[in-house]
């Protein structure tokens, strides 16, 4: 490999390219110095990311700005549903009662082949809710397996023998995972209290998906390094 080629590989996103660059650096003193300098710069850049703190007043300012915003349509609809007599707390008993009523209606009124539209709608909601819960459980199980496999790799982030570029990447992954864990915990707690809050369930699923992707990236990094 030429030194010109080395210059392209040293800035590549592909761990395999950087590995090739590192191998070249073992044979070329000048490129070894360049590689070390770039690694030092990357580390400093990463530390810089961690160093900045927002001014104290900014959160208050953002809160004020959000308070002035009109309520988004989805939240408005949810609020209206709640104001109209939310049946969230009574969803399961209501669904059972609805099923019973539907059964009775079917038995007593043979000319009515379908449950009333309102009851049918509620039954669909219950069914959709069960599907969402099953998807969440599935994600949680997959994540637990991935987490187990990724844990030793993430633990290597602070190992001095880990290549600095990999360590930097692993620390970034750990950082994102920590953020996602707190998001998941917070949203899951909210969903427990408000199982019918569709937007929160979508957010929870998105957080699960992102965590799954990050864990897969960690494992991929482990395979190449």
């Amino acid at each position, binding site marked *: 490999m030429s030194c010109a080629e080395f210059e392209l590989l040293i800035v590549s996103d592909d761990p395999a390219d950087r590995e090739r660059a590192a191998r070249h650096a073992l044979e070329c003193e000048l490129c070894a110095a360049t590689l070390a300098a770039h690694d030092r*710069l990357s580390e400093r850049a990463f530390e810089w990311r961690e160093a900045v703190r927002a001014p104290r007043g900014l959160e208050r*300012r953002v809160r004020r700005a959000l308070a002035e915003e009109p309520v988004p349509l989805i939240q408005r609809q949810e609020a209206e549903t709640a104001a109209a007599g939310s049946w969230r707390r009574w969803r399961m008993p209501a669904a059972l009662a609805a099923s019973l009523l539907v059964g009775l209606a079917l038995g007593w009124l043979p000319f009515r082949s379908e449950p009333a539209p309102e009851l049918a709608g509620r039954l669909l909601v219950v069914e959709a809710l069960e599907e969402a819960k099953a998807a969440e459980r599935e994600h949680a199980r997959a994540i637990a397996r991935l987490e187990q496999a990724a844990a030793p790799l993430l633990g290597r982030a602070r190992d001095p023998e880990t290549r600095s570029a990999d360590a930097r990447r692993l620390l*970034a992954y750990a950082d994102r995972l920590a*953020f996602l864990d707190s998001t998941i915990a917070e949203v899951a707690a909210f969903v427990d209290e408000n199982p019918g809050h569709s937007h929160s369930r979508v957010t929870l699923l998105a957080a699960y998906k992102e965590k799954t992707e990050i864990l897969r990236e960690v494992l991929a990094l482990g395979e190449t390094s």
Partner: protein
Amino acid sequence: MEVYRLIGNSLYGTALRILGREAEAEDVVQETFVKFFRKASSIGRGAVSSWLHRVTVNRCLDRLRARKRAAEDELDESAEVLDGPGAGTLTASPVERLDLERAVARLPERARLVFLLHDVEGYRHREVGEALGITEGTSKGQLFRARQMLRSWLEPEREAAG
């Protein structure tokens, strides 16, 4: 506002590094959260943190473009030279104490943005290219150039020895 507490510092840091001006960085963070509030229902499938960062970066780049246009207008009208991105205001900010920040502020605009997005924000070259409207190859070239310039300013002795 739990989201703000989790990610507000990070978004503010991103905006401050790109814009170099505290007041503008605060504006961008506020705009980002307002947009998040308005669009929250449609963000579900993507990653919330990535979405917030992407919006922050795009808002910053819009502001840099506007700043550049304004500077050109000013030059046309009065030949008055405005500050470069981050110059002046960044010098006065508390985070300016670090050598790296001073050196990054001296980089040419495109190299500076590529370095910030790739090495600090963790973007891949493809994402850098999409954000800045350049090719992946240009992004790589600019990153190498930026790192070499920073190296020559921050580690002149080591470079001479190397």
